[in-house]
C-alpha cells in the first residue's frame, strides 16, 4: 500500500446525470443476476398462482374466460408486492442509501434508476410469460395481445407506486405487512383499468379507453412517484 502515489481525481472523467442513472440501474441488474433466486421467486409465484385457478375450477371454458383478466392481474399485483420490500432494504442496511442521498446527482434520478431496474427484473418477465398462462384460460389471440399491452403499461405503474410504499416503510419493524396494506389499495386503479381492458376486449367493447386511462396513470406516477419516494427515503434516513 502506497500513500505517496496519490493521484486525486484530476485525471478521472466526470459522469453526466444520465450516466449516474444508468450506473445505478446497471448495478441493480447485476445484483439481480447474482441473486437469481429473488427474481425466480416472483416469476414462479405468478406462474403457480395463475395456474392454480384452472386446476381448481375445472374445464369450464366460459367461466375461465370470464375470470382470466382478473386472476392474471391480481396475481401480477401480488407478485409485484413480493419483491417490493427488498427494493431499498439492502441499500439501507449496508449504507449505500446514505451514499445515494449524498450523491451530487439528484436523488430522484437515482430512484428512477432503481425503479427501472426493478421493473426490468420483476415486471417485464411477468409481461413476457403472461400470454403463455393466458392460454390456460382459453383466451384468443386478440385478448392475449391486449393482456400483454395492459401489463406492459401496468407493471411499470406497479413498480413506481410500490417504490413509494417501500420508501415509506423502510426501517419500520414489521414493514412487510404494512407495505402490503399501504400499497395494495393504491394498486386498485391499475387493477381496474388493466383487467378492465382485457374484459372490454373480450366482450367486444374495445380496450382503447381502458388502456389510455392506464397510460395516463403511468404518466402521472412517472412524475410524482420518484418525488414521493425521495421524500420517503429522506425521512427514513434522518
Amino acid at each position, binding site marked *: *500500500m*502506497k*500513500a*505517496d*502515489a*496519490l*493521484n*486525486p*481525481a*484530476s*485525471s*478521472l*472523467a*466526470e*459522469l453526466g446525470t444520465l*450516466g*449516474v442513472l444508468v*450506473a*445505478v440501474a446497471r*448495478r441493480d441488474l*447485476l*445484483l439481480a443476476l*447474482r*441473486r437469481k433466486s429473488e427474481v425466480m421467486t416472483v416469476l414462479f409465484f405468478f406462474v403457480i398462482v395463475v395456474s392454480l385457478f384452472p386446476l381448481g375450477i375445472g374445464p369450464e371454458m366460459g367461466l375461465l374466460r370470464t375470470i382470466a383478466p382478473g386472476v392474471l392481474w391480481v396475481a401480477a399485483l401480488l407478485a409485484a408486492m413480493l419483491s417490493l420490500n427488498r427494493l431499498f432494504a*439492502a441499500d439501507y*442496511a*449496508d*449504507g*449505500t442509501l*446514505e*451514499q*445515494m*442521498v*449524498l*450523491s*451530487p*446527482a*439528484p436523488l430522484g434520478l*437515482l430512484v428512477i434508476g432503481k425503479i427501472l431496474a426493478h421493473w426490468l427484473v420483476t415486471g417485464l418477465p411477468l409481461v413476457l410469460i403472461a400470454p403463455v398462462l393466458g392460454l390456460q384460460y382459453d383466451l384468443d389471440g386478440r385478448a392475449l395481445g391486449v393482456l400483454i399491452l395492459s401489463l406492459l403499461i401496468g407493471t411499470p405503474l406497479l413498480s413506481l407506486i410500490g417504490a413509494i410504499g417501500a420508501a415509506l416503510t423502510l426501517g419500520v419493524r414489521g414493514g412487510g405487512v404494512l407495505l402490503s396494506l399501504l400499497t395494495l389499495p393504491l394498486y386498485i386503479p391499475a387493477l381496474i383499468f388493466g383487467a378492465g381492458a382485457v374484459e372490454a376486449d373480450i366482450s367486444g367493447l374495445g380496450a382503447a379507453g381502458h388502456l389510455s386511462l392506464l397510460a395516463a396513470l403511468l404518466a402521472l406516477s412517472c412524475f410524482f412517484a420518484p418525488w414521493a419516494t425521495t421524500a420517503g427515503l429522506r425521512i427514513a*434516513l*434522518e
Partner: protein
Amino acid sequence: MLKAIDLACVRGDRRLFANLGFNLEPGGRLHVTGENGSGKTSLLRILCGLSPPEAGEIHWQGEPIRTLGDEYRKAVLYLGHHNAIKEELTALENLRTTAALAGIAVENEEGTDVLARVGLAGREDLPVRFLSQGQKRRVALSRLLWSPAPLWILDEPFVALDTAAVSWLAEIVGAHLTRGGMAVLTSHQEVSIASGIEQFLRIAP
C-alpha cells in the same frame, strides 16, 4: 471553510449535545471524541447533511449547507460505519458504482490500479463476500484515492484495519491535509497523523 454554529442534537427524549461549534480551515483536522453513545456519529451525519440539526447552522464557504445542495454534496466525502459495498459484486464493480454515485467515471484499468494501491491486487475480480472484514474496509477506503472532495468526514475509519493499514490510512489523510483538504474524524484508537492543524472536539452532555 466549514463552520458549525451552536449545533444541537436530540435523539428521542435525550439531548445529545447543544451549543456545539467549531471552525475548520483548509489543512485542518477535527478529531471528535466522546464516549459511546455521546453523539459522535449523529454529529457527523449532521455535518454531511444527512440529518438536520435540532438547532444551529453549518456553513460551507460562508453559505449555509441547506441552500448549497449538490454543490456541498460534491465537496463532501462521507465514510460511515457501514462500508456501502455489495457482497455479491466484485471489488472492482463496487469501486466503479461508488464512483458513479459520486459522479465520477472510473475505467477498469484505473479501478484496478486504485485497488492495487489499497493492497487488493489480484483480488479485484473476487466477489466481496469472499474478502475478510479488513479487506472489505479497504475496498470502502479506496474512495479516498480517487475522490476530489475537499472535505472528508470519516466515522471510525481505522476500525478492522491492521497496523500497516492504519499507518497507511494516516498517511493518506495527512497527504490530503497537506494538499489543503479538511478532515473530520472519530476514532477510539490513538493515531498519529503527521501534517495538518489538529483540533479536538469532545462531546459531553
